[in-house]
């Protein structure tokens, strides 16, 4: 089987698989699965094969290939690739060609990874189901009547369907972890500042992070070093050494203390989710970790805090889409005010407009103190909750989402209901700590359930070690969606 990053890289390095073959395999799987799931907004078969061909030729000439040479990857459509259309799943950026590469893209390509296409998402990363894409619906490979999660729904679905072994996602309030959990794959939101945001189209600047999505914690450990590290183009990027995640992976969890935040089990979680997550907690116990109860008392305020801060920053970040320098300009605009007002109304989807309105309002004169400033203070309290918890424990374990994947349209009528489903993920972005979602079971209906591990800043190594230990002892991550033949590895 060559479907995980580890397997594909091993085959590429040994020569059992050529770069051309690796890319062709991905393209074949994409062709087979896309009619059912529509994870990709754009695929560049010819360019990817040509690039793979060049790599194979170079290798034949004796040039040492890069460490990721030949690895086909998918890119969420809000990470800039030079001269490749970047729409953020929005009409306002249809046709937009960035004249530069995001730092993570430059690093991955320098290592030899080959992007094969652009992945669907909620417009401007605002959503939890990918239903807010302006262009197409992406379907959950486990049940195509259900959403894949969001906003990195395309990335999660593509990895789950084994179209590509690796995809880049982004996470502002759970947008990597929740779709990973709904699609039965592994996803990491790194510590804020661990991965450069240069080239990531901004939604909420103090919360956004680019992160890896793959089938295993080991895959994440193998690819994270190419994403992580200081970038002089990003003033918020941390200048901290990058650990040898893969080399240190087999640490295990013996002697680790894992905290279970009691507030995360009080909310109305689906019974099957709770069951699967508690089973995972027991598993960690069996593996030698000490499990204790902890408290994160400000949990109930996290969603309110998140939606104030995120929409405020988004309302400002999205002001640049004005029909003048790039993007959509309304054909019926006759004056400058109309260029702005009509282009933005035509170009943005309703959820984006809703968040811009909310964010503009909470920053406006007279309301700044009551909403925005207040939220910044509660953010401090939430961070302090985690600081205190990590003084007692090394890791925290929670469900990733309160339910498995829901059906299309189920939450579209009531935006607030959609927002409330983010309860387990938003605090993590507010505090800036890293979070890993792992498959930990399935509902009776066969829908994946995810467990979330949290650690203190820059402790991705501990997260991945725990994740790897769990995946060595379980096989939820090896189960494949019916779409791909339903057979296990």
């Amino acid at each position: 089987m060559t479907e995980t990053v580890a397997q594909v890289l091993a085959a590429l390095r040994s020569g059992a698989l050529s770069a051309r073959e690796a890319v062709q395999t991905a393209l074949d799987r994409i062709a087979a699965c896309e009619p059912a799931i529509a994870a990709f907004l754009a695929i560049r078969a010819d360019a990817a094969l040509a690039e793979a061909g060049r790599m194979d030729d170079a290798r034949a000439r004796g040039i040492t290939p890069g460490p990721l040479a030949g690895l086909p990857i998918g890119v969420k459509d809000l990470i800039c690739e030079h001269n490749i259309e970047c729409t953020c799943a929005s009409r306002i950026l249809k046709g937009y060609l960035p004249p530069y590469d995001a730092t993570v893209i430059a690093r991955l390509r320098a290592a030899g990874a080959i992007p094969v296409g652009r992945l669907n998402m909620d417009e401007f990363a605002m959503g939890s189901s990918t239903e807010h894409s302006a262009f197409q619906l992406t379907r959950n490979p486990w049940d195509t009547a259900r959403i894949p999660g969001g906003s990195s729904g395309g990335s999660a679905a593509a990895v789950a369907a084994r179209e590509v072994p690796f995809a880049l996602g982004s996470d502002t309030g759970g947008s990597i972890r929740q779709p990973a959990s709904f699609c039965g794959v592994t996803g990491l939101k790194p510590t804020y500042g661990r991965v450069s945001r240069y080239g990531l189209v901004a939604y909420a600047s103090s919360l956004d992070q680019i992160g890896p999505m793959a089938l295993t914690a080991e895959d994440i450990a193998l690819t994270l070093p190419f994403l992580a590290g200081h970038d002089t183009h990003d003033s918020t990027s941390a200048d901290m050494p990058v650990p040898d995640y893969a080399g240190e992976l087999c640490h295990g969890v013996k002697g680790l203390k894992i905290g279970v935040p009691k507030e995360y089990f009080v909310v109305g979680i689906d019974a099957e989710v709770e069951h699967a997550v508690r089973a995972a907690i027991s598993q960690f116990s069996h593996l030698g970790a000490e499990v204790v109860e902890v408290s994160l008392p400000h949990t109930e305020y996290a969603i309110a805090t998140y939606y104030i801060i995120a929409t405020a920053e988004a309302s400002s970040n999205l002001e640049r889409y004005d029909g003048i320098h790039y993007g959509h300009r309304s054909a019926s605009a006759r004056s400058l005010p109309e260029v702005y007002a009509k282009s933005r109304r035509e170009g943005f989807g309703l959820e984006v407009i809703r968040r811009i309105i909310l964010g503009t309002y909470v920053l406006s004169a007279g309301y700044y103190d009551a909403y925005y400033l207040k939220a910044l203070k509660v953010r401090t309290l939430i961070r302090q909750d985690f600081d205190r918890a990590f003084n007692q424990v090394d890791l925290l374990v929670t469900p990733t989402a309160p339910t498995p994947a829901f059906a299309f349209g189920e939450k579209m009528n009531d935006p607030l209901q959609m927002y409330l489903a983010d309860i387990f993920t938003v605090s993590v972005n507010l505090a800036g700590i890293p979070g890993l979602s792992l498959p930990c079971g399935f509902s009776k209906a066969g829908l994946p359930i995810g467990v979330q591990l949290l650690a203190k800043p820059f402790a991705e190594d501990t997260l991945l070690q725990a994740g790897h230990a769990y995946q060595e002892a379980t096989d939820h991550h090896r189960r494949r969606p019916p779409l791909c033949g339903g057979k296990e590895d």
Partner: protein
Amino acid sequence: MSARDSVVYAARLARIELSNADLDAFAPHLQEILAYVGKLNQLDTAGVEPTAHVVPLRNVTAADTVTPSLDRAQALQSAPRTRDGFFAIPAVIE
């Protein structure tokens, strides 16, 4: 301000043209969300410092050394309308 007025005000600041149907659709949502997020006011935050940045970084600056700019064709390649190397817009009176 009523929720509808709030939407009108915010939409004007945000330069988004909203029809009456839009306003009818957004106003109740805004009201509901604002009521929800307003629950933060239950919390006593006296003496709590706001967190504007989660990273403890300070003084991140760059040296004053020129690096190459984009060539103009690239800078303008996605512009809806250009003329003679400029971005073009309907006439503005200042």
